[in-house]
């Protein structure tokens, strides 16, 4: 194994890792937003919104993320959507993660005993007040860990945007293989950096979870 080479290219990988982190953070933010809206739609009293929410989830979860990215990036211009690779990556992955998060958030909300909502409504609270004063504070605690699983998956999914030539970790590894012919070292280096990112994110989520259970 060529350690010397790994040390030499390491700074370039680190730079690419920052882009992977940026991609992950933006994707997570967009994913959580889509997830919250998706869950609200799926739990709505309007049938049309429930249908839209359910359709969103089944279309996104029923097709490969890579195909979704290709449709957005390569197919987009054909129907007038012009995005650069990074934008397409964030939007594509964010919308994708949102579908999984929709189900996570919805699950955490419907798990709360229905007596909680009834007790709140019986006191005279409106539907919205019951939701944000009684249901959501309880389900928020329940959703931190499963959302952590979604975030773990989303970080790894950022590797897919290499296929639309965003210069993140995986793409960088491939590029250096082209010039060094050392796929083992290059992919190993990328893998280690992914693991560090995921480890730190995981610790952050575990910390958040502990904090939420205490108060």
């Amino acid at each position, binding site marked *: 194994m060529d350690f010397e080479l790994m040390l030499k290219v390491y700074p370039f990988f680190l730079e690419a890792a920052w882009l992977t982190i940026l991609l992950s953070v933006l994707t997570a933010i967009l994913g959580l937003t889509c997830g919250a809206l998706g869950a609200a739609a799926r739990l709505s009293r309007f049938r049309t919104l429930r249908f839209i929410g359910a359709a969103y989830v089944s279309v996104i979860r029923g097709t490969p993320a890579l195909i979704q990215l290709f449709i957005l990036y390569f197919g987009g211009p054909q129907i007038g959507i012009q995005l650069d690779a990074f934008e397409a990556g964030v939007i594509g992955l964010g919308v994708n993660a949102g579908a999984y998060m929709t189900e996570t958030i919805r699950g955490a909300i419907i798990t709360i*005993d229905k*007596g*909680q909502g*009834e*007790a*709140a*409504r*019986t*006191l*005279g*609270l*409106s*539907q919205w*007040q019951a939701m944000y*004063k*009684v249901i959501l*504070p*309880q389900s928020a*605690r329940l959703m931190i860990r499963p959302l952590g699983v979604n975030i773990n998956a989303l970080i790894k999914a950022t590797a897919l945007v290499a296929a639309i030539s965003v210069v993140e970790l995986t793409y960088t590894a491939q590029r250096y293989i082209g010039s060094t012919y050392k796929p083992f070292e290059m992919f190993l280096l990328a893998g280690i950096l992914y693991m560090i990112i995921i480890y730190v994110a995981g610790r952050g989520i575990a910390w958040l979870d502990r904090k939420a259970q205490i108060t």
Partner: protein
Amino acid sequence: MTDTSDFVRIEHAQKSFGKLEVLKDISLTVERGQIVAIIGPSGSGKSTLLRAINDLDALTGGEIWLDGVQVNKTLPHRQYEKHINEMRQQIGMVFQHFNLFPHLTVRENVTMAPMLLKDLSKAEANKLAEEQLDHVGMLERIEYYPSQLSGGQKQRVAIARALAMKPKLMLFDEATSALDPELVDEVNQVMKKLAEDHMTMIIVTHEMDFAAAVCDRVLFMDQGVVVEEGPPEVVFKNPVKDRTREFLRKHIEGAK
């Protein structure tokens, strides 16, 4: 005072789940300050009737009136929401499984609704909570979380939470059914105290002794109809209907 003759009025209450008819044309009035017990086997519709009074379970037919106002009015969704939230503020309800809010302390459980709905300041709401918790003997546990309380204590807090909204009517849905036998009495004592304060109460219960001691009237329900109603001494001691007699006999045997 206003006319007390029909403080709560239920007219031709009817409720079906698909083809299953749970309530069959029930009419009933309760006077101000009266305490009415509803007894009957499970599946008789007694809880459904109670939950219809504050529209937790909407009726499929019939009307519910409280103090001259129809509870289950037909209104467009938004207006109905506003109306029912106002009505529910006047109708306290206590559940079999307490339904305290586990993420809030005892104090916060009691202060939340008055602060949100009656615009009380924090200080005013705290004072109110302390009064109500003192009334049910739970003042010492005001900073506890529900998970740190026994079942009987939880139910007393739940009663204080309902009373903090100053309701005109209290509904009890098997308030002591989920409690260990030795904890039943502390909740019964609180309910007796409410009776002495002349609170209007409708109580769904399996506790015949308590019903006999506290209630002005007892309704025996079976299969969605009121089979028999009258003062407790009559319904419990000299029931007219065979079905009532049979139920009471079985119940007493079951209790032994």
